[in-house]
């Protein structure tokens, strides 16, 4: 009798995430790519849940799969998602060589047993006792205070940047279209 255990769920979600990732790079039409990417993100969010990172999972769904991907879909709708015809080329095969080399190198990392690095006191039961969001919050506002503030500066910069790039243009749009 096949039993659905924690391991099986993690395994199935991981494989689904990989398949969705393949969908992103193999679909000709950008709109399908975006949908596959959302699928990939949701799989990863579920995996985050299984790794006791409820808060990160929620943020992943709300911010990433929600806001960021909506922006993607909006731009695709605006620019028109034309299909792209691909043909094999030298550049393509050299790209594959590079990627395969990279993959082997990264697999090398998986081939070894973990040694004994620092382990903290944030065991799952400790985190669950105070709640994932609270634990992350305490950590964020104490040990990682400066990165948190810097991230806010970064968001401000992004806002300034897109206003700079996208605000009303110096030339009227119709004249440029000619």
């Amino acid at each position, binding site marked *: 009798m096949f039993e659905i255990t924690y391991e099986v769920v993690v395994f199935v979600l991981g494989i689904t995430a990989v398949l969705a990732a393949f969908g992103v790079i193999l679909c000709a039409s950008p709109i399908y790519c975006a949908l596959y990417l959302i699928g990939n993100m949701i799989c990863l969010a579920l995996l985050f849940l299984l790794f006791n990172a409820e808060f990160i999972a929620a943020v992943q769904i709300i911010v990433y799969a929600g806001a960021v991907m909506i922006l993607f879909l909006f731009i695709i709708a605006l620019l028109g998602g034309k299909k792209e015809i691909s043909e094999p080329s030298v550049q393509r095969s050299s790209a594959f060589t590079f990627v395969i080399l990279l993959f082997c190198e990264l697999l090398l990392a998986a081939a070894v047993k973990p040694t004994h690095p620092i382990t903290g006191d944030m065991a799952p039961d400790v985190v669950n006792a105070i709640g994932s969001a609270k634990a992350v919050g305490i950590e964020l506002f104490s040990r990682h205070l400066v990165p948190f503030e810097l991230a806010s500066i970064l968001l401000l*910069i*992004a806002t300034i940047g897109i206003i*700079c790039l996208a605000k009303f243009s110096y030339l009227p749009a119709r004249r440029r279209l000619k």
Partner: protein
Amino acid sequence: MEPILAPESIDLVSIAPVLVLTVFAMGVMVLDLFAGKSKTLLAFVSIVGLLMTAISAFAKVGLPVFSFNDSYTVDHLSVCFILIFTLSSALAILISIDYNDRENIKAGEFYSLVLFCTVGMIVLASSTDLIMIFLGIEIVSICLYVLAGIRRNHLKSNEAALKYFLLGAFATGFLLYGMALMYGATGTTNLISIADLIKSDGVKSEPLLMIGAVLLLIGFGFKVASVPFHMWAPDVYQGAPSPVTAFMAVGPKAAALVAFFRVFAETLPEISFFWETLLVTISILTMFIGNLGAIMQTNIKRLLAYSSVSHVGYILMAVLVKNTLGSASLIFYMVTYAFMIFGVFAIIIMLGRKGDENLEIEGYSGLGFKHPVIALCMTVFMLSLGGLPPLAGFVAKFYIFNAALQEGFLMLVIIAVLNSAISLYYYLKVIVYMYMKEPVREFQLSITPITLFVVALAIIGTIQLGIFPDPILSLAQQ
């Protein structure tokens, strides 16, 4: 669960430069509302801000100081680099005032973004935490993506921004994967703890750490434009507005290099047997491909792009040296490089006019007869970039090669000297065009007092540091 941060670790004085500059960057945005059409006022406010930042860098005494749970470090290296960043940003703002007027870039955001970019560089130079280094790199990069594409109706500017953005984001992926592996190998993101752990423990032989180091090398390689990850540099340098090109050739590159130094030379010296060979190869390739690429260029900005790639090859030797001698030569090299690059770009900006930037080297023919003083200044900068005595470029190279020799990199130094000789070919080509060819076009210079001031400052810096390098050298060595 108690808050983990000890209250005494929150040290706002140590991050004073970041705070001061952020306030000024936001102040410039607000002032933009009232500034009207001319943005010159904003430029001067920005320069005041940079000056204040440079002063606030000295707020902390008794270096080194570690604050915010050792994630932020104020040491000699970071203070020196804050001075370099403020100097280079101030020069970039000075040369952009007239350029922006001329090319109709009427965005007050320009100055604000330069200041924010400098904030990112300061963070990058002072942080000893992987998360903060990542944020610093991203702050710098996002500002530069926007600055490269700030001429929105200009096809080349758009293209430069797109290429820079796509490759920059790609490189960020590698950088992050490397950081994640390092976190996985050691269990912490703090560079000081990682260094301690490697020293005390058997993490040394950890493949995770090594593969993480390789990926970090790829990521940083993209950011500093070292071969084989330099492809973006010529295109982006050519397409970006000239002051932005000068800006990104000095400040952000210096910031990425100092983070490079912190991660590799200060944190991972114990596993240097592994990354040293890789870095030596990268350094040699960077010199050769940069110099050979520059020989074939006809556009002055592309030429300088390849030349800056080759300079990265020399500077990477400072990372290889790993000790304080390395950091001192890094500091001195970046100071001289800042003077030379801003001098050259100030002249390039002078030689162009609205709608015609005059960027082909052909267009410089006969400059020596028509405008001898400007041609002489250009000659000095070119010879200094080529590393001829008694100019600053020579002392900087001599110092860095000497440091590498003391660490036993004899082959590398020989190759670097050889490359220095190759590089003279294309620097001299520019001089030959200026003095030995008939003019092919009329010169319509847009000389303004501010640009002249920058050229004069750069000339003084280049000659002064070449003849009397001791004050800056001893400051760098401290």
